């Protein structure tokens, strides 16, 4: 490299570009900051006008998210023993008492079970198929690969109609197993395409050396290819997990009481006279935060994941 390069942008243009991009980042992050901060506002603060940027932080939203509450008659309220816990106290301030836990915990747990279950299954099946597509002459390979991809073009509602009927017959409606299988069916195309790309990058010579050393194909796959593909498998897993975590259409149509995940639940959190925004924001924060963290961890493989491996850096 020469000391002076014609392709190196000037200092002034770097500064200008930096300022413009940071300004964009500021605008685009504002809604996210607003979600997180609304979670710590009291009910009146959340809907005051002009919108409050500085406010007294309150955990009311989080308490409301995890509990159901009732209002009791004034004389009964006065006769209550002093509140035992801090969350009792938060609720008492609004003149109410805790009636029991809400369903948010359950819904969140469902999201975790279905997310991890379908991710595990997608990765196991996807790794096997991707290895075969990468290393062997599979008949009709290109057609099969395209077929796998084209399943992603169907609108979810189009698939949901027959799945709804099929699950009703098989007793899989509103079950964890049903949702795990469904999300695996949707995610498997992504998993196969991404993993094939990662396995293609592992030199074949490693396995061939192992085969000559007396390993069987399967041993070579397990002891040579899998460790080499670990990073690729991990990032593919995160993409599958994020998809299953975020999915709404199937969840709202095919689940209700038992296996409902968090995305269809959060919008139904109702307070007095409409949505309880601090509680909704608290739920959204808890739900979105893991994805934000994963996104930051994944940043190097992000492009590959969102384009099915079509663009690699």
């Amino acid at each position, binding site marked *: 490299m020469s000391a002076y*390069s*014609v*392709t190196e942008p000037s200092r002034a*243009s*770097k*500064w200008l*570009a*930096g300022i413009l*991009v*940071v300004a*964009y*980042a500021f605008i*685009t*992050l504002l*809604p*996210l900051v607003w979600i997180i901060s*609304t979670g710590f506002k009291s009910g009146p603060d959340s*809907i005051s006008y002009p*919108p409050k940027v500085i406010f007294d932080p309150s955990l009311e939203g989080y308490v409301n998210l995890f509990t159901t509450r009732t209002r009791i008659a004034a004389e009964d309220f006065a006769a209550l023993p002093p509140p035992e816990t801090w969350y009792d106290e938060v609720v008492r301030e609004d003149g109410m008492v805790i009636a029991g836990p809400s369903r948010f915990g359950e819904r969140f747990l469902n999201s975790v079970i279905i997310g991890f279950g379908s991710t595990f299954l997608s990765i196991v*099946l996807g790794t*096997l*198929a991707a*290895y*075969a597509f990468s290393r062997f*002459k599979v008949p009709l*390979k290109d057609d099969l690969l395209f*077929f796998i991809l084209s*399943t992603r*073009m*169907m*609108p979810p*509602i*189009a*698939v949901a*109609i*027959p*799945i709804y009927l*099929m699950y009703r017959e098989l007793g899989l409606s509103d079950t964890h197993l049903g949702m795990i*299988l469904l999300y695996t069916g949707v995610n*498997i195309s992504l998993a196969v395409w991404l993993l094939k790309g990662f396995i293609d990058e592992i030199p*074949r010579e490693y396995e061939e050396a192992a*085969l000559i050393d*007396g390993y069987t194909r399967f041993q070579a796959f397990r002891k040579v290819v899998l460790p080499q593909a670990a990073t690729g498998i991990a990032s593919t897993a995160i993409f599958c997990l994020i998809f299953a*975590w975020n999915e*709404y259409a199937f969840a709202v149509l095919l689940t209700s009481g038992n296996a409902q995940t968090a*995305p269809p639940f959060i*919008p139904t959190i109702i307070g007095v006279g409409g949505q309880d925004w601090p509680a909704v*924001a608290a739920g*959204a924060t808890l*739900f*979105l935060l893991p*994805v934000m963290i994963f*996104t930051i961890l994944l*940043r190097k493989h*992000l*492009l590959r994941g*969102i*384009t099915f491996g079509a*663009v690699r*850096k």
Partner: protein
Amino acid sequence: MTNPLPNPIEAAARATPAPVARRLRGLSDRAIAWIFVAPTIFLLLAINIFPLIWTVRLSFTNFAANRPNREVEWVGLRNYERILTDEGTWANMQTTAHFLVWTIVLQVVIGFTLAWLINRKFKGNDLVTTLIVLPMMLSPAVVGNFWTFLYQPQIGLINYIVELVTGIPASSFSMLGPGGLAPWSIIIVDTWMWTPFVMLICLAGLRSIPDYIYEAAEVDRASKWRQFWTITVPMVLPFLMLAVLFRGIENFKMFDMVTLLTGGGPGNETLLTSIDLKREAFEKWRTGYSSAYAIILFVTVFGLASIYVKALNKVKER
């Protein structure tokens, strides 16, 4: 996929006595290939293809899923005929097209500009890029729901900012209510979410252009403006077209974010075809009719995508 080198395993297998060869090979590659691929194909057949075939079958009947005991009649192509001659369907197609075209235009313009700026490689560009991409990874349903809060009439944050910046009183308009703003409100949220996607792909395109091309152009005294149109744009174009393909398919299927934001309203102003399909299938329970609707949508997106991919390959070959 052919390996130009002679396969060492084959050679080794042929040179060794039979028992050793068996140990060396284990299962044949062909058997392993099938064992590895079969579960995936089976799952896809069960979760994707079988339902699709079932949908095709249902589309020729008057079946209603909430009345399973009613006698099912074959109605031939009547469902298709009714959908394609229904003015409502065409209005929804236009609503979808409006959403599709504007989201793609805005995301391409803003996304490319951002990528171009980030490619100036100012200090900290990696960190800002990571922050900018956050919205696209989040749950569209949860985020869409929260945007109804930001869009609240009179007291919403967006109304407040508009009043602050332009002086238009916050109580004089409603982003999601009547007044014609709702189709633009969903475009804004989609653009907010997915501009980073286009940006990331454009950035990969920009970074794939080798420096020596610009250096050569500089030697030839080509102006910066000319370099931009004759080097930068043509070389990023295949990447940009890929981004548009992904956004096009995704937004044609758009359901979650818009359902929670407007549910298709006010009136039918934001009734995208996916939301209409959901109403027909799961609210009016016209299963046969909505199956035909689903097939029409699938054929449309599949057909358009195939034509587009052909065009994309031509651009790539140049």
